[in-house]
């Protein structure tokens, strides 16, 4: 590491701390306050530290609803993201590799998926008619349908950077399309796959509106709903609200920290590949 890299790092860290960390310090401090202290919403040291008590109280609210919410949200997120990566990569692959008139139609639909806000009530009718309304399975497919456009777009633009020679070499070796895709292409897509995983899992885990409409019912509660539940239930209890914000932010943070290393690994892979 050069001197320059060190000094740039220190300056960047100082700036980033003010811009990006300070608001989180505020959330943390508020989450540690007593109810009256927190209701003033000032950036001050807590009069009395109650971090642990608040944590327990949020956890115990409504018979440990938060744990059930963690479970549901995790199941939805894991399955939906897996499907999104597979479907997104496959569509993006065909879309990029096989230019044709169909291609344009598909691309048009992809853009439409990004551009058109979903129609709630007709969607509920569809879900009811196929028996998936109010089910975790239905919610997973909804998230896949709504997230596809983003995944396809991302995969498509990155597949453009993978040389066609690789597919052709594999084809000459007698590989089937499935083999080419899973053995040759998908491993090379690691950086963008990680991006899709991180972005989609955060979006789906943090989604509030869609579960609200498509997944009603107490046993189907998801994490963002606990946050929201809380806000109404304890209108002035900002300490608990902010504690809840902290708690529901932890799973996405773990996902990110885990995959952040993969991005670094992906970078070296990219360097070798070129």
């Amino acid at each position, binding site marked *: 590491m050069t001197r320059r*890299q060190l000094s740039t790092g220190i300056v960047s860290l100082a700036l980033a701390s003010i811009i990006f960390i300070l608001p989180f310090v*505020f959330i943390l401090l508020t989450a540690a306050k007593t109810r009256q202290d927190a209701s003033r919403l000032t950036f001050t040291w807590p009069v009395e530290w109650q971090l642990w008590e608040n944590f327990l109280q949020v956890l115990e609210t409504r018979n440990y609803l938060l744990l059930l919410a963690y479970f549901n949200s995790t199941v939805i997120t894991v399955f939906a993201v897996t499907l999104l990566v*597979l479907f997104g990569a496959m569509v993006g692959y065909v879309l990029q590799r096989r230019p044709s008139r169909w291609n344009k139609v598909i691309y048009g639909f992809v853009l439409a998926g990004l551009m058109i806000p979903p129609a709630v009530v007709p*969607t509920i009718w569809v879900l009811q008619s196929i028996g998936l309304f109010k089910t975790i399975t239905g919610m997973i497919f909804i998230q*896949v349908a709504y997230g596809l456009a983003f995944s396809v777009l991302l995969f498509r633009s990155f597949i453009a950077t993978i040389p066609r020679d690789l597919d052709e070499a594999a084809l000459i070796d007698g590989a089937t399309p499935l083999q080419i895709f899973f053995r040759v292409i998908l491993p090379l897509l690691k950086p963008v796959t990680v991006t899709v995983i991180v972005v989609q899992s*955060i979006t789906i885990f943090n989604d509030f509106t869609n579960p609200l409409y498509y997944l009603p019912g107490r046993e189907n509660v998801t994490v963002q709903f606990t946050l929201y539940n809380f806000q109404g239930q304890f209108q002035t209890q900002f300490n608990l609200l902010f504690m809840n914000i902290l708690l529901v932010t932890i799973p996405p943070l773990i996902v990110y920290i885990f995959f952040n290393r993969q991005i670094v690994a*992906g970078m070296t892979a990219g360097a070798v590949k070129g």
Partner: protein
Amino acid sequence: MVTQKSPYPYWFVLPAAIVFSVLFLAPTFASFWFSLTRWDLFSAVFIGLENYRQFLREPFLIQGTVNTLIYAITTSATKSVLGLLLAVLLTSGIWAQGFLRTIVFFPVLVSTIGIGITFAVLMHPTNGMINVALSAIGLPGPGWLTDPSLALYSVILVDLWKGVGLATLIYIAGLATISQDYYEAARIDGATRTQMFFRVTVPLVRPATVTVVTLSLIGGLRSFDLIWAMTRGGPGFSSDVLASVIYKQYQAGFYGLSTAGNVILFLLIALIILPLTAWFNRREVDL
């Protein structure tokens, strides 16, 4: 048998197409019909184009459209420039690089509701942290969210704060696919750092730029969550964007009218995005 067909079979698209058509396209087409009706969810009465006429007469439509364009263009332009610069900085091997990446990305992890609540508090005109800090150094803090001429820009600032991490991540993934050989070659040719940035990095990171610009532009044109969480389009109507105007019709129970608004918003987005992507695609080079 397989070898005679294309190595890129269309059935690859099929599973995705089924899910997408059943759960997205079909309901969307159904809703287009409802935009021609007076619809209260229990019954729908056909009224022709009356909803479109009504929506285009909406008193804040023009201001909402202008705000939408300001929002989308400002955020997508800033996110692409800042995102690329940050990505280059955070892949240059500086001290605490990994930690800095996490920090920059951290806001992306938090839900919009959480961020909305937090910043509404931090931007409070009298006892919010920002104005308290400003007055400590003798500057009068503005009413970030309560001054009608400022509210939209305050939300834009928070949007950038929340979204620049994602742009940076996409750019970092994009930079990862650029071979070091190009930089070696440029270095041997005696290129300066600036020249390398503009001649090697910017052209080769193009797929990432296309993605960031497209996504953040569409996101900006459709943006709603953060505005709703922070200002609800207010004070008054001053930070209304098209999506919030539409949502208010929906909230009021004017379902047909809000669907008509959605169709109009969709047309506006298509008008901007389709020529843009056509342009992007024309310039796409296959490696």
